[in-house]
């Protein structure tokens, strides 16, 4: 009886207000939260997966038109954004590490850096979107027109309808990604606030770690989106 999880739990509960009543131990709580976050990421994989499936089908069907449309995206901005996100994954990993080793102030610094990088990504994305609007590359709007021809076939102009499908996918996929970035920035603002109150320490940094998992996942989605959207057919 004295070693039962319930007895242990009652003892721990007095010591640790972060332990919720229905868990027996902190470790059980942490393992539950981690597994929960991983399963949530599974749902996200399948959610984006539907759009990747749509992308695969249409790229298979309209490879030439997709190549032309892809080349109309600003490669520099896209590459910069990729670098920005990769840096933000580093800062997130560092933030979690600081919690693991007890560097409380550094956690906040790294989280703020992450937020700044996230906002930079969103800002650059906004510029890219504006470019698309200015160039009349927005599907569904009257006046859509994509200049150019199929790569290596100067006699075949790009098909305007198929190009609209490309841009529909572009906006849907990067839009959904950006939405997840916005949520991530909000999440990290909350985590930074909590970190500034000293909540995260070597014994307890689960929300930070799970927030990090979310952020890394959004980064991975971009790691795939970048070559699939920007680099379809960029060679002569």
């Amino acid at each position, binding site marked *: 009886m004295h070693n039962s999880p319930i007895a242990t739990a009652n003892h721990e509960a007095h010591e640790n207000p972060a332990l919720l009543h229905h868990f027996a131990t902190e470790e059980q709580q942490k393992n539950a939260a981690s597994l929960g976050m991983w399963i949530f990421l599974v749902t996200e994989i399948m959610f984006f997966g*539907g759009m990747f499936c749509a992308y695969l089908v249409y790229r*298979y069907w309209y490879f030439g038109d997709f190549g032309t449309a892809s080349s109309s995206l600003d490669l520099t901005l896209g*590459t910069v954004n990729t670098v920005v996100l990769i840096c933000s994954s*580093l800062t997130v990993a560092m933030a979690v590490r600081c919690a693991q080793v007890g560097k409380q102030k550094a956690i906040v610094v790294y989280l703020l850096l992450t937020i700044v990088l996230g906002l930079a990504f969103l800002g650059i994305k906004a510029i890219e979107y504006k470019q698309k609007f200015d160039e009349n590359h927005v599907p569904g709007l009257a006046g859509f027109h994509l200049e150019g021809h199929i790569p290596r076939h100067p006699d075949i102009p790009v098909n305007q309808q198929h190009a609209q499908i490309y841009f529909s996918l572009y906006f849907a996929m990067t839009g959904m990604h950006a939405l997840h970035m916005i949520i991530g920035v909000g999440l990290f603002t909350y985590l930074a606030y909590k970190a500034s109150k000293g909540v995260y320490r070597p014994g307890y940094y689960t929300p930070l770690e799970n927030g990090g998992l979310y952020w890394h996942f959004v980064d991975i989605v971009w790691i795939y989106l970048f070559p699939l959207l920007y680099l379809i057919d960029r060679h002569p």
Partner: protein
Amino acid sequence: MSEHISPVKLYVTIWLALLVGTGLTVYAATVDLGAFNPIVALAIATTKAVLVVLFFMHVKYAHERLTKMVIVTAIFFFLILLGLSMADYGTRLWT
């Protein structure tokens, strides 16, 4: 509860590898590799993703096999979605 703490050097190395991968994929896109262009692009992207999963998301140091099983399951069903859909699209023009 012993959590693995990765050294800073490891994180920086992975970060650099990701940047190199990014540069590589941009460069490879400018070279005509024929049918291999998409394969190379996806291979580089997957390598980057694996690095993020294993080291930034700590899956390499996960206590349980469950974590890896969860990831593998998701990827498996994602590939089923793509694969069986392409079983239709890829064969539509067969007579």
